[in-house]
């Protein structure tokens, strides 16, 4: 393979691309971590008896589930400061963290809905039979309902994970050095049409290799759950 073959260029740029992909993976993992923790809290509150709190979480979920992700990323990028000064400490607020928040917000709204749906999908007969065995409500929730919810939530959660991973490609638009940004730089540097085509195909393949196993796992979990 000659040095001016497009595959030669690809080989040379591959480490940079993979470094970029690693940024996408980091962002997706952190966004899902944030989204899951926040979403479970919001989902739990949305099941509470207090009407005011329930309405608040309802609006939160509606707002962030119906917002385009690109707008949320722009929103967090331009609304949040680039650094935070508390007394004499300075906390930098890099763009990639803003993207994590921008993706974490819709993720949390979706997780909240997934959680609420799972809890409500547990038949009331499970509560009744556990009550008959003299469990307290708190025990029923912890020992009987929650473990069943986790199973029911898994396929939807993984689906969301794949979706959020794909959305990390939007990070390049706010200047994060992710895999898409790397591909654009490579394409501009090599400046050959055939290489541009190749590198975007490579990009597709990289995302596919990351998201397809998640989709397959989701499918098999769904099948297992159906039984």
């Amino acid at each position: 393979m000659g040095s001016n073959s497009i595959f030669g260029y690809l080989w040379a740029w591959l480490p940079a691309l993979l470094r970029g992909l690693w940024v996408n993976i980091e962002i997706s993992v952190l966004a899902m971590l944030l989204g899951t923790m926040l979403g479970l809290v919001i989902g739990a509150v949305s099941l509470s008896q207090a009407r005011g709190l329930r309405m608040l979480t309802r609006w939160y979920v509606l707002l962030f589930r119906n917002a385009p992700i690109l707008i949320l990323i722009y929103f967090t990028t331009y609304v949040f400061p680039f650094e935070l000064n508390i007394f004499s400490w300075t906390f930098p607020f890099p763009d990639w963290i803003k993207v994590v928040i921008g993706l974490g917000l819709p993720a949390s709204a979706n997780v909240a809905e997934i959680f609420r749906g799972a809890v409500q999908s547990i038949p009331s007969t499970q509560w009744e039979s556990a009550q008959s065995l003299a469990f307290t409500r708190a025990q029923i929730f912890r020992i009987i309902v929650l473990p069943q919810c986790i199973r029911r939530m898994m396929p939807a959660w993984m689906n969301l994970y794949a979706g959020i991973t794909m959305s990390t490609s939007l990070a390049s638009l706010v200047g994060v050095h992710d895999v898409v940004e790397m591909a654009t730089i490579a394409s501009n540097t090599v400046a050959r049409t055939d290489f541009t085509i190749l590198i975007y195909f490579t990009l597709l393949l990289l995302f596919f290799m990351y998201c397809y196993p998640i989709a397959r796992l989701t499918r098999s979990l769904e099948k297992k759950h159906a039984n």
Partner: protein
Amino acid sequence: MRTNTDSIAQSRAFHQDRPLVQLRNVHLAFGANQVLKGIDMDIRKGQAVSIVGPSGSGKSTILRCITGLVHPEQGEIYVGGVDVRALTSEQALIQLRKNIGFVFQQYNLFPHLTVLQNLTVAPIKVAGVSPEQAQATAYELLRKVRLAGKEHAYPGQLSGGQQQRVAIARALAMRPDLILFDEVTSALDPETVGEVLTVISDLVSDGMTCVLVTHEMRFAEEVSDEVYFTEAGRIVESGPPEQIFHAPQSERTRTFLQRALGKTGVEHPPTMDVLPAIDFKGIQFSY
């Protein structure tokens, strides 16, 4: 009845000759729908009592009242001398339910737990039994319901009849003073009804106090000490099974029994070794 600190005062007032379960003039409505219109019932320790009657006559609701799952607006319910209607706190209801087993029509096993875990989770978490002791009891109960070897199966892997027998064992694992059976064979395939009824009739022979809401008339006749016939939220007639099934005093009881016994043509046998043959328009199904 086992005494617990909450009910000592009430238990003192409870005489030895008093029925274990006593219902007096119990009324209950779901919205505008009057379900129970004055139920009186006495269930003594060691008795097997059947409640029969048309669907929607309030049979299952009676069981739910006894265990405090629903709260009647009028009347008195005593279980082991404890006034059930006065129990308002969760703790008090839990003390009551520790002594009452409940078996549901749809089994309602915990699908995420193995058979063994289904049997041990309440004894460990509620009754404070040690895991070793709870497991030993569970193995013993599984033998009793003829399911030894199924300890590590999940409920979804078992047949309806097997699941229902696990549900009975799960109720027994709490060592209750009485067990309420709510149409426990209604959701089962005909061929598995027998195995569940066999287990129940074993319990009755052991002297366990059992209250059965059932559509299995022959079975009710065979095992019961007392049968209640309910219709439209009232008890029409009660008495020993010989009276209810062979010399009913009420015309309504007679009509119901004629229909109930004539409807299916074949009654499910109470034991597993007698198997039915169904003759349907000249086509015979033998088992």
